[in-house]
């Protein structure tokens, strides 16, 4: 037991600081992905909700692809493919330059692609929960299409989509672990290094699992709070 505590302590003897750094990378990757995933997901939901069939179809193809591919494969496609593609595209345009797609960015892009396609479903079903009268009311007040969307529909939409988005956040947090495979020093990779060096894989991967659990618990509490806050208007009724 004491031995395990030494291994987990901070400083020269222990791996505490290494693992703490891994947690930091995991959390910052998830947080950095979130806004892109949300915005992209919202735009796709808008496209799916539009009356224009070509736009709808284009959005549906997008979600079919990114919900059908294993996340691990999406990650490899982005990590190796985007760089090769960008480089060759620029070469065709006559630029001899070098673009770095590091593992953090690749992870962010891949996770945002996956997140946005699931989030678009959450937004779409929320769209369906908003009665047509809300739009008509907005127009009747002389608001433009854009104003109606941002001032009238969006606030209600977020409230409706929040539980589903909360779930997606928890999934996102877990999926960041895949980025360890393309060399990002996240929680799993750092635990893996510690496990190999100390020959204590059960201890370190067990700790990693527990840390993910703690992150999930913190997130759930936070989400419950946000949900309560989003419904504060309902309470007085």
């Amino acid at each position, binding site marked *: 037991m004491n031995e395990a505590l030494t291994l987990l302590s901070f400083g020269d003897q222990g791996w505490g600081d290494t693992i703490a750094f891994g947690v930091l990378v995991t959390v910052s990757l998830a947080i950095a992905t979130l806004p892109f995933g949300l915005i992209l997901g919202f735009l796709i939901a808008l496209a799916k909700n539009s009356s224009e069939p070509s*736009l709808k179809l284009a959005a549906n193809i997008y979600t079919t692809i990114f919900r059908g*591919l294993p996340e*691990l*494969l999406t990650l490899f496609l982005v990590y190796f493919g985007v760089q090769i593609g960008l480089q060759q595209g620029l070469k065709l345009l006559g630029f001899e330059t070098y673009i770095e797609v590091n593992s953090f960015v690749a992870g962010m892009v891949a996770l945002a692609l996956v997140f946005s396609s699931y989030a678009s479903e959450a937004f779409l079903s929320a769209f369906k929960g908003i009665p047509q009268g809300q739009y008509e009311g907005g127009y009747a007040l002389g608001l433009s299409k854009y104003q109606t969307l941002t001032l009238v529909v969006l606030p209600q939409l977020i409230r409706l989509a929040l539980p589903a988005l909360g779930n997606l956040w928890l999934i996102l947090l877990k999926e960041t672990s895949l980025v360890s495979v393309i060399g990002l020093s996240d929680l799993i990779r750092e635990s893996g290094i510690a496990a190999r060096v100390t020959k204590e894989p*059960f201890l370190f991967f067990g700790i990693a699992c527990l840390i*993910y659990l703690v992150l999930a618990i913190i997130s759930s509490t936070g989400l419950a709070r946000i949900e309560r806050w989003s419904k504060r208007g309902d309470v007085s009724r």
Partner: protein
Amino acid sequence: MTAANPETSLPRPPSPPRTWSNTRILGHVLMALWIISGVSLVFYLGSNVASPFVQKYWPKYIEGFLVTLQIVGVSLLLGALLSVPIAMARGSRWKIFSWPAYGYVYFFRGTPLLAQTFLIYYGAGTFRPELEAVGLWGFFRDAWFCVIFAFSLNTAAYQAEILRGAVLNVSRGQWEGAAALGISKPVTFFKVILPQALMVALRPYGNEIILMIKGSAIASIITIYDLMGETRRAYSRSYDFQAYIWAAVAYLLIVETLRRVWDKIEARLTRHLKR
């Protein structure tokens, strides 16, 4: 009454022309992009069908595909068996049953499958003497069994929640009605409640199968040659990016086919519920 005067009756005005609104332009541009990518993908793959890469690796991809099917099939089945007692314990009134079941479900749903797989695969190596003592080392020594073990435990947690949610979804009235008819509780459960619950659970079960197919790619990280494993091996030997493109096409086809077949099955089984 006179016949309609062709001079005074007006023909129906033509419907207003569809204008090229911004959304329509955007939709067409995006579709054009998809079509261009799709065509170039087909062209790219078509021009590579006879390439040395495909010649050399396509049998490997088939083998990998079969391994993926095996892993997914066996894990889902074992997970389904395991999920029944877990779901029952989870709904139990006694805390000695419900709390551990809750903990189990929370653990396996709250941590990444990758971490669970590593914990079992590399963790088992640490406990070799103990496992040898109880004769289980032979089981854990093999990466394939470790993967099956990890995936089954994982999917059991998800399936237990699906099952529980579906059973709770059946209204109390069904229980009461059956009780009023003098039907015993076990018979009520299997003949009245379960069929209705499974109907509700069809969709989430379908999603779970798809999640499992996608998640099984993780097996490739611990030396299993499933579809993803063969892909990575082919790429690491040839450095040819088409390795990943073929894999992407294969996974998309598998998942889409399954999703469509499942939709058909669901539509067929729930046809009496259609109004």
